[in-house]
């Protein structure tokens, strides 16, 4: 189904080229980085590397008729060995001047910068703050309705998205699979003069397929199948929420974003993340500073349930219950300073230095220097 949507979006975009407008745009982020000696962070180590966060993308869009547009985005990411993938492929129907409906594979509007997350040129950071933005579920197969309007100086946008998410990700160095069904995301964004406010709430039925944890789950099941199903994330309801605020005086700006997620009946810890960022715009230069924090360290869940079991079982149960939750637990904060330089109206050069500190394991602390060339055409 996904393939068919992707193919038809391209076919439509290409075939419409004969008689109508086909727009080809692209963007590229060339990001290089190196960490302090013997450290690693965000996929970088103490040798200069370009692959963790570089990407090249082409977007093709074509008007099928006055109200319908087909859009496909091909992205080659360094972290995937620059294999090209159709990350977005969707049709948009402009129902009225205020309302549009898009269907296919789309970006899920979870964050303030979700929509343009891959377009480095659109923001001041080298890469959007990982504490908030590093989630293994950015795209959704489904439908999104956008409504926007304004009255006087107040502009507003509402989005309602529904669909399904499937993605591979890495947990504690092991590959794993995530599936979220029946996803519903609601967002509201308001712009009033120099202020911007945004809120988001989402829910879905989450299934984690993590081969590395299978043996532990099996052992747990032999003792108590109730605890096993409680800890497993198997079609369990998950919640996501977030808010952001921004004040942009053009010469300077300050912004903050907060997100949280929980999957109550699962091993996955309740998480909260936020960043605060500020910058100055002086001609072509935008120096900035960002503080970010990620907290997935809310104490192990379900430990209180173990007390009800016979004494000989309590030690192995405790080991299993805590051991299964351990890989997902983390707590860290990062401070970055950097500068963006507008080389041209379609090229930006950036450099930043990030100091990452792991609140659970000091040996993971690292300093990372990154530089980037962002290009749009």
């Amino acid at each position, binding site marked *: 189904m996904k393939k068919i949507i992707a193919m038809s979006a391209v076919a439509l975009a290409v075939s419409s080229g004969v008689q109508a407008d086909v727009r080809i*745009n692209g963007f590229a982020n060339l990001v290089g980085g190196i960490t302090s000696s013997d450290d690693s962070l965000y996929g970088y180590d103490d040798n200069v590397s370009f692959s963790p966060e570089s990407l090249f993308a082409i*977007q093709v869009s074509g008007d099928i008729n006055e109200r319908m547009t087909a859009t496909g*985005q091909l992205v080659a990411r360094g972290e995937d060995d620059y294999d090209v993938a159709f990350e977005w492929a969707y049709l*948009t129907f402009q129902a009225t001047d205020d309302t549009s409906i898009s269907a296919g594979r789309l970006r899920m509007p979870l964050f303030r910068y979700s929509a343009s997350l891959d*377009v480095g040129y659109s923001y001041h950071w080298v890469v959007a703050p990982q504490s908030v933005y590093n989630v293994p579920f950015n795209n959704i197969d489904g439908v999104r309705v956008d409504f926007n309007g304004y009255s006087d100086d107040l502009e507003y946008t509402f989005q309602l998205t529904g669909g399904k998410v499937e993605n591979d990700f890495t947990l504690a160095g092991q590959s794993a699979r995530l599936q979220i069904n029946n996803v519903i995301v609601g967002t509201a964004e308001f712009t009033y003069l120099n202020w911007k406010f945004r809120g988001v709430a989402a829910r879905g039925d989450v299934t984690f397929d993590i081969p590395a944890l299978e043996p532990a789950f099996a052992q747990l099941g032999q003792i108590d199948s109730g605890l096993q199903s409680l800890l497993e994330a198997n079609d369990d309801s998950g919640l996501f929420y977030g808010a952001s605020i921004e004040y942009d005086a053009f010469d300077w700006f300050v912004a903050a974003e907060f997100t949280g997620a929980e999957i109550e009946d699962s091993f996955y810890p309740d998480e909260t993340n936020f960043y605060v960022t500020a910058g100055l715009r002086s*001609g*072509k230069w935008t120096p900035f500073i960002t503080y970010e924090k990620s907290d997935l360290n809310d104490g192990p869940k379900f430990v209180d349930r173990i007390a009800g079991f016979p004494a000989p079982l309590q030690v192995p149960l405790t080991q299993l219950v805590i051991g299964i939750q351990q890989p997902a637990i983390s707590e860290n904060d990062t401070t970055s300073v950097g500068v963006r330089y*507008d080389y041209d*109206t*379609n090229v930006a050069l950036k450099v930043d230095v990030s100091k990452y500190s792991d609140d659970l394991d000091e040996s993971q602390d690292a300093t990372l220097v990154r530089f980037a060339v962002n290009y749009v055409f």
Partner: protein
Amino acid sequence: MLKKHLFRGCIALMVALSAHVAMADVVMVVHPSNSDAIDAKVVKRIFLGKEKKFPGGSDATPINQVAESSVRGEFDDSVIGRSSAQVSAHWSKLVFTGKGVPPAEVADDAAVIAAVAADPTAIGYVDSASVTGAVKAIQVQ
């Protein structure tokens, strides 16, 4: 303290001087048949892709100038209120989320006037010295 004041004074002087040198008087131009009430807010919304129609309800087709044009820089600064790079970053957000197509760009004032004179939906901007009888000029600043 004195240094700071001196520094501020120098900056102010420099800004004043550079503003004086760069100050081209930008005016909006529309088709002579266009009788819409157009102010800076309307222009801003149309050129940032937030509005596709004139206040009267008819379609609006913004016409931009190429990045190399000095009138473009002046228009972005004084009417839109952002640098050309910021305006371009704004459009990159819309383009790569399928939410908009940036205005067509033409080379200079003469090309803007030719395009606007030929299209009742068009709206562009030029240096006031370039205005001809083929278009209607509107002062928005």
